[in-house]
């Protein structure tokens, strides 16, 4: 008689392996470009215009993803220290330090995994540190830096002057790409690329909305990372669009079967702020233990807030790229807009609580999150937990302290729920 086998459930699901496959494909291209000198360009994630690079077969390289991978593989600290040795402060963004340290140690260039960029496209979309980071890279690699200055959203909607300014800069970027590659800009090709972008964006949006179901088919904070790579870095490729078709099919099937990412969903939370990548799994465990699932997260919208209806438009190619960069991403919008975004998440995704993960590295996210906690707790009555660590530097993550805070928070939520249950039961009796 054959021995009974127990099927082990992979908490990451099939989406993780699909994501890993296409991301590995891209990284293989990067590795090849490092040695064969194929044109490549540095770019930042938030509100990026990767489609323009793709239109010229310029391979996009994202230093943020490099930093993220170093952290999640628990390799970031030596590179952070390397950067601190040349003068970076302990208070500087550790993403920058890990990436620069990695470059200083030979990670970029012919012997590394990442190509030395042919040019640096600084899409300044919200985060001021981007500018410094890319200035340093430009000076280190001695390659030109193209600045794409995207006006911050500071009125109800961007003015025609804002849009014109960005459009002019996009045309200038195109001219730079033409010069770099010797290729003529092909508008029809850009339209084709944007069709794939839009298909991927529809898929990503559908996934996000599927989390309105109870139980949620995936964790919109921890599992979103599987989709953030494809939507932000591989957007505009057939592979990314196909990936999202497959992901939607998988999550729709889970919803139809009543299957959630957790066996028994107890708490639905919204998470604000990037995760602590050096302690990704253990941080996740602290929530899973309480059967708490993130049904929405702000971090997953740094590249785009597609779930609110925007998608690239092949009929208005450059205009829609400009709109995406200015309006439809988290980073280029104010804190107050973020409050509204989170409130929508709490209400429309039926969340029980807000968890703020405040990270030292990224002031764009963290500066003033105490005010956010104040607003959600006092003005809106949303139970809110704020914990602190870092997204890159393992020295700022304290497991014991984190566990204490998270346990205490969910214990109190549970207690409130029990009390509410009792009082509801009493009301029924009366």
């Amino acid at each position, binding site marked *: 008689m054959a021995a009974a086998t127990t099927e082990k459930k992979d908490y990451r699901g099939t989406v993780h392996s699909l994501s890993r496959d296409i991301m590995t494909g891209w990284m293989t291209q990067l590795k090849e470009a490092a040695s064969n000198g194929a044109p490549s360009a540095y770019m930042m994630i938030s509100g990026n215009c990767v489609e323009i690079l793709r239109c010229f077969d310029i391979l996009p390289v994202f230093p943020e993803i490099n930093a993220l991978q170093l952290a999640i593989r628990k390799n970031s600290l030596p590179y952070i220290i390397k950067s601190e040795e040349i003068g970076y402060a302990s208070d*500087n963004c550790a993403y920058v330090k890990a990436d620069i340290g990695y470059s200083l140690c030979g990670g970029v260039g012919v012997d590394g995994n990442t190509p030395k960029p042919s040019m640096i496209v600084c899409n300044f979309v919200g985060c001021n*540190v981007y500018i*410094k980071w890319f200035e340093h890279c430009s000076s280190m690699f001695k390659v030109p830096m193209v*600045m794409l200055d995207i*006006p911050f959203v500071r009125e109800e909607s961007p003015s025609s*002057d804002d849009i014109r300014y960005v459009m002019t800069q996009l045309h200038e970027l195109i001219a730079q790409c033409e010069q770099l590659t010797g290729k003529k800009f092909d508008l029809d090709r850009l339209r084709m690329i944007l069709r794939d972008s839009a298909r991927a964006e529809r898929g990503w949006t559908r996934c996000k909305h599927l989390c309105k179901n109870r139980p949620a088919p995936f964790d919109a904070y921890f599992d979103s990372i599987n989709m953030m790579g494809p939507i932000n870095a591989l957007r505009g490729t057939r592979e990314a669009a196909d990936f999202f078709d497959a992901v939607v099919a998988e999550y729709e099937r889970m919803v139809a079967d009543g299957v959630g990412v957790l066996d028994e969903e107890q708490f639905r939370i919204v998470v604000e702020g990037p995760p602590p990548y050096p302690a990704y799994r253990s941080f996740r465990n602290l929530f899973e233990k309480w059967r708490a699932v993130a049904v929405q997260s702000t971090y997953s919208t740094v590249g785009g807030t597609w779930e609110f209806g925007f998608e690239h438009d092949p009929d208005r190619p450059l205009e829609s790229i400009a709109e995406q960069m200015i309006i439809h991403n988290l980073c280029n919008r*104010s*804190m107050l807009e973020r409050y509204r975004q989170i409130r929508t998440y709490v209400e429309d995704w039926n969340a029980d609580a807000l968890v703020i993960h405040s990270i030292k590295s990224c002031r764009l996210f963290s*500066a003033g999150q105490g005010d956010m906690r104040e607003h959600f707790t006092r003005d809106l009555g949303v139970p809110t937990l704020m914990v602190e660590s870092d997204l890159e530097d393992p020295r700022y993550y304290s497991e014991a302290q984190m566990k204490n805070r998270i346990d205490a928070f969910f214990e109190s939520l549970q207690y409130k729920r029990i009390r509410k249950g009792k009082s509801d039961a009493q009301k029924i009796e009366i």
Partner: protein
Amino acid sequence: MTTEEIIAHCRELLDLLPAQALERAKERHPHIGGFGVFPVYAPLEVIHAAGLMPVGLFGAGGKIELSHAESRFQSFICSIAKSTLELFLRGDMDAFTGVVFSSICDVARNLASIVKRNAPNHYVEYLHLPQNLYSAGSSAYTRAEFERFRTNLSSRIGRPITDETINRSLELYNKVRRITRALYEHRRKYTGAIAAADLYAVVQAGTRMMPEDFAPLLEELFEQVAARKTRARDGARVVIEGAFCELPPLGLIEVIEAAGCIVKDDDLIIGWRLFSEDVCLNGDPLGSLAGAYLSSNVYTSVRHDRERPRTDGLMRRIADAGAEAVVFAPAKFCEPALLDYVPFRLRLEEAGVPHLKVEFEEKMWAFEAVRTEVETFAESMLFD
């Protein structure tokens, strides 16, 4: 007034909170209102032309206790953000018509939002100043941004702000900047012409006075300083770099000189003296201001300049000042300054220029450790 009296008057103004400085100005200009200007740069002329006094909002300089702001901003956020918010939370800015922030860093941007939420009756403006100085669209964009400010402010105060009045304000601020440049130039030429802390106090006082009062005071000071015989003393000739936003306590600047350095140039309050020459007066003052902002060769850590990197700017500043070393004075947790420290440092080391880093906080009051550090640094150069 004598030089000493002018300096004493300026130092006295620094002890005031922004609202008190406004009250003081109202003694001479009863009908003016106040408008807070968070560093680094804002078109002061537009504010002044609106009949308001632009008041430098550099936090509270350690003059108030932080009771509420500490709970809104984490421990790793700079002092200026916290004490600025505290001023609003305490109601200390209630007499002001509004406040303007700009795109200098991530903290300042979030601060603008938080002030807006916590002080809902205030007009809070946020300017996105251009980071691309060389696009074909930069000039029109910058002008439009200043125009947007004029329109919003005008609608807030309920009266137009005309080109003519802006031009008049421009003339005044041109004069203030021109004399300030002259004072700086004089200090570069004549070592010991004016103590660094005194010049710093005067420039800072200028952010708390109406320009029509400040210009003649500055003029008087310049005439006296220029006429004074200076006695060069021994010391390490240094440039102070990195304190372009949050203000270091006067005591820190005093200690740097007392410990053996002679400050030849600095970037203190750089936003209020950003232009290297007069802004041209024509029929389009906002266009002129936009042009000046884009083409001014005064570098700052909060403006990317593809053609004129800050590292070149610092080397030029050192050479023009006849300095031999740099004292970096970044505010604690100031990301732009701390990030810039790295390329500056690498460049200085390449050129063999000694440097020292001294971080500060606005509420800093003990300087003994700094004194020892600076003394050692200065002596290492003097007796090399």
